[in-house]
């Protein structure tokens, strides 16, 4: 009786390379696809035990359609994006519990009183542009550093979202918000109390979301990765 032909460890390594070659950059997505391909190849071997590994692999890959792994990767990014925002929201909510609610109130008061100072919006806008530039420089430096690491290391999709893309929420979003206010030519000195309160609330919320995405999440990266990927701890 023939023993069932199995994908060897070397072949698994080859499959990892194969997924990377087909634009799957992240280890978490690669792993799942590798296991899938390996299972399918073994299934193909049940019928054609003599078929070379490469041929069986190509047969299996064909089943993913003309776009190959692209669809899976794209949708995975979307799903992870959703997850990122859920995590972000979890930490933002913490700002409304004791003792952090005190800092939240302070940020609110700061905005609220600043808005009442003449030309406050220009002061704020100027400060944010400087901050944004600093943030962008740091961002670019990190990116360069990561590029060097890129080839050798396993990369995780969520890790990249926490570190590089911040789920698409960059400091520029922040600057844009103030830019819009600026363009609307709102004179804060003449605005009634509740409008000031609303703008101060928005400013506070944006500040917190920005702080959580730029500082809190990167600090908690390891914990979050372990939570999201059971395989992260197995390395």
């Amino acid at each position: 009786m023939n023993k069932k032909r199995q994908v060897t460890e070397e072949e698994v390594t080859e499959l990892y390379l194969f997924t990377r070659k087909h634009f799957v950059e992240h280890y978490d997505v690669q792993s799942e696809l590798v296991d899938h391909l390996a299972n399918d190849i073994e299934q193909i071997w049940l019928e054609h035990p003599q078929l070379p590994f490469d041929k069986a692999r190509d047969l299996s890959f064909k089943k993913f359609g003309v776009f190959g792994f692209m669809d899976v990767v794209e949708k995975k990014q979307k799903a992870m994006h959703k997850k990122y925002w859920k995590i972000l929201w979890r930490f933002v909510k913490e700002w409304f519990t004791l003792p952090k609610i005190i800092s939240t109130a302070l940020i609110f008061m700061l905005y609220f009183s600043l808005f009442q100072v003449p030309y406050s919006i220009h002061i704020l806008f100027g400060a944010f542009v400087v901050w944004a530039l600093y943030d962008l420089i740091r961002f670019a430096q990190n990116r360069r550093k990561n590029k060097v690491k890129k080839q050798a290391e396993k990369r995780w999709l969520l890790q990249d979202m926490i570190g590089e893309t911040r789920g698409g929420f960059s400091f520029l979003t922040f600057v844009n918000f103030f830019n819009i206010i600026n363009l609307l030519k709102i004179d804060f000195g003449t605005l009634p109390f509740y409008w000031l309160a609303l703008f101060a609330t928005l400013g506070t919320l944006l500040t917190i979301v920005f702080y959580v995405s730029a500082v809190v999440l990167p600090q908690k990266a390891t914990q979050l990765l372990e939570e999201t990927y059971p395989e992260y701890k197995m390395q």
Partner: protein
Amino acid sequence: MGNQKLYKGSLQTIILKLLANTDKMYGYEITQKVKELTQGELNITEGALYPALHKLEADGLLEVEVAKIGNRMRKYYKLTEQGTKETVGKLAEMQEFLRTMERLVSPKLSLD
């Protein structure tokens, strides 16, 4: 092989139902199980299965467990508590859908 498009909208319900019957399953196992249960009628494509699984996971309906097999990582999916609840609702919706289709496709021409 039937028209695969007709099954497309039901993929999530199919996955949830399968997982409700077993403790945990991995992607490839799901495709094989569906093939077996439908005697080859429904062939879930790889390009559709994983996006559906990842979406259900991101929505909190599924959770994952990973087992190491040699240097292969096998990712198992199982229902979360929320997923179990959702399955009941989705199956009820599906039954309703099937009844409606039945009425539309083969209306009973009776006098009562």
